[in-house]
């Protein structure tokens, strides 16, 4: 066993970095989704409310309250500041921080300070009497905080193994979240694929793009005329847009290849799964995908993504001692 100073990383540490990153991505995603939804709600008639809420809860995989109450205040609280909901923004930020706290000697102090500050900010909103008075400010702050953390991470942490686990966590989470969003949307809003959407419906499609932070980027590529086929293509297959599924899968594959090289382990399984997924997205055509249904396609992506997650776990985080001693 020779001295491989650069590449020593405890399995527990890798696990924590991975989950820290996933939780933070989840918090950012949730904040953006609610933010977009609240904006959209302003343009709707008040009675459309409860159905929208159910859709949002579903998109975030949060079970609806048992008492069936669907008023805005209760639900916003449930999704943002409710500690008993493990998917609420505060729970995700707290979990991200707790994970980073357990490995804080692995990250730069700037990273820790940034995440800690975000947590304290969310916490102080939660404990203030006023609560979510200015929700727009709050969701903005969470997204900014997460972006800032990514920027600080990229510019202060060395882009070694640990950084790759952070990348991995972020993009695994993102792939799953964006794929889920697309599937649910195409289910809910059937529309002729190659016709521009109009009027009331238009706003729904804008909201989908905005939920993936993609509206401006889409407009640049295809103008503000929205066609479902193009939207699907943009969100699924665009190689350059950071919230598209293909972009995310490319990152997952890159991170796994780098890790496998750094650890000098024959870690075929995760790289193979990510490579296959990457090939699927690189060589698929949008009309083929839509012909067999967007849902089937995103379900298969999500399933492969979870397979990759399991394989990463088994090879790097929780391997058996016997297998390691033989190696």
């Amino acid at each position: 066993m020779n001295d491989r100073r650069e590449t020593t990383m405890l399995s527990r540490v890798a696990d924590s970095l991975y989950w820290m990153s996933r939780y933070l991505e989840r918090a950012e995603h949730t904040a953006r989704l609610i933010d977009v939804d609240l904006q959209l709600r302003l343009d709707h008639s008040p009675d459309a409310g409860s159905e929208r809420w159910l859709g949002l809860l579903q998109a975030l995989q949060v079970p609806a309250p048992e008492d069936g109450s669907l008023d805005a205040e209760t639900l916003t609280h449930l999704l943002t500041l409710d500690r008993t909901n493990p998917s609420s923004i505060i729970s995700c930020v707290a979990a991200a921080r707790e994970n980073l706290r357990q490995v804080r000697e692995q990250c730069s102090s700037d990273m820790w300070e940034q995440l800690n500050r975000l947590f304290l900010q969310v916490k102080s909103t939660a404990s203030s009497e006023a609560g979510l008075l200015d929700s727009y400010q709050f969701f903005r702050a969470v997204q900014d905080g997460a972006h800032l953390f990514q920027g600080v991470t990229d510019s202060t942490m060395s882009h070694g193994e640990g950084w790759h686990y952070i990348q991995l966590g972020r993009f695994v989470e993102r792939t799953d979240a964006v794929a889920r969003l697309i599937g649910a949307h195409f289910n809910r809003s059937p529309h002729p694929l190659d016709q521009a959407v109009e009027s009331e419906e238009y706003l729904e499609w804008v909201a989908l793009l905005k939920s993936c932070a993609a509206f401006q980027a889409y407009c640049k590529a295809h103008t503000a005329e929205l066609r479902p086929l193009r939207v699907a293509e943009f969100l699924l297959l665009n190689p350059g847009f950071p919230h598209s599924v293909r972009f995310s899968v490319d990152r997952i594959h890159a991170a796994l290849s780098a890790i496998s090289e750094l650890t000098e382990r024959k870690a075929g399984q995760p790289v193979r799964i990510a490579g296959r997924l990457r090939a699927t997205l690189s060589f698929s055509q949008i009309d083929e995908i839509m012909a067999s249904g967007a849902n089937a396609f995103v379900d298969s992506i999500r399933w492969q993504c979870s397979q990759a997650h399991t394989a990463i776990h088994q090879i790097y985080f929780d391997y058996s001692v016997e297998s390691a001693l033989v190696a």
Partner: protein
Amino acid sequence: MFEAPGIPRPHYRALFQTLLDLPPEELRKSQQAADLSFLHQGITFTVYGNSEGTERVFPNDLLPRIIPHAEWGKIERGLAQRIAALNLFLEDIYHSGKILADGVVPKELVYSCRHFRREMRGLNIPRGIYVSICGTDLVRLPDGSFAVLEDNLRVPSGVSYMLANRKVLKKVFPTLFRDYGVCPVDHYAQALLATLRALSPPGSSARHEPTVVLLTPGVFNSAYFEHTFLAQQMGIELVEGRDLLVHDNLVYMRTTAGLRRVDVIYRRVDDDFLDPLCFQRDSSLGVPGLFNAYRAGNVGLANAIGTGVADDKAVYAYVPQIIRYYLAEDPILANVPTYMLTDQSQRNYVLEHLDQLVVKAVGESGGYGMLIGPQSTAEQREDFRRRIQAEPRNYIAQPTLSLSRAPCFLEGEAQARHVDLRPYILYGENMTLVPGGLTRVALRRGSLVVNSSQGGGSKDTWVLRA
């Protein structure tokens, strides 16, 4: 700080003048900035037995405590002497036990100590160094001399606060700091690493650079911040028990690249929890099989197992004799007078004067299990009277010391508070004493207890160059 009311001791004059010149608003702002920086850096400790907000910022006081060069020289020599003698003592009692046979320290005292580990009998450890890292608590007596209050030979903590305080003070008083000529402390982490490496098992250096890790009980431990801080400063892995495993008496850590051999463990886990196969069986903090690997000489531990016997508060009373016995020198630093409660006449005296004395449980630390006579209620004294009579070996008593006081910036003004001093001694290939230490402050007015768990805080300690 003052030699007479209103007249500061010479080395405090410049600080005093600066304070007088500063508008209080300035100082308050600096204190706020410092507090915020501690909060954002997450320099916190955990308070046990308190479920709400268990993570607290360690209060830091801006005004430095200043120690002139000559006073420090004596402290340095005194501590080096003390640690050398205590190491010889530990080696002796875990081998032939000459000091016990010669009747200098009573056998019963050593063998009845809760921290005596019979598993260590006859075991030869790297360099024969039992205590590599030591934090000794000193107090300044009314006559101006320093005396030893307690030796912490197991897992002393607090050194990270010494380093963090220094970092903050340099930002707050840059000019004052430069003009004072303060000895640096920032090389502590590097000295610690060298000390730990010196403990690596023979043969490991031929294989590769020794791999040193810091073993922490985990994120819920009160000193967790310190563990992460030191690991980061030294550039070593911070591990938990579950990250390590023992196979064929070799210790490995579980990394993403497979298992990697570990040579030295700086363990911040108590003896009891180190190895469930050997010590406490239900411990999940330790590593099964670690003691066997240690016994086989395949891994170094700092500090060694069983050092607690030498910082037992009853053994403490014998340290002056221990120094004379092994080194044939007089102790440079005095002990605080200590009453042994196993002795009939001393016990009677103590029981009659409980309201004037401090009583301590011999195996406790962190300010737990203490009675401070003058500040106690009749009920508490009665409680301790019963406990002493039930288990006299378990307690000692000392006179209530008038700890020296230092100015602290509290409630917008400088107020005097009781302080002690904990310097950190490293003993590997050489003895290293970083000039400075942790000055702990009893922030509650009139309080004599400086432990962080009991409402204490800390301040930077400036040892002057000349």
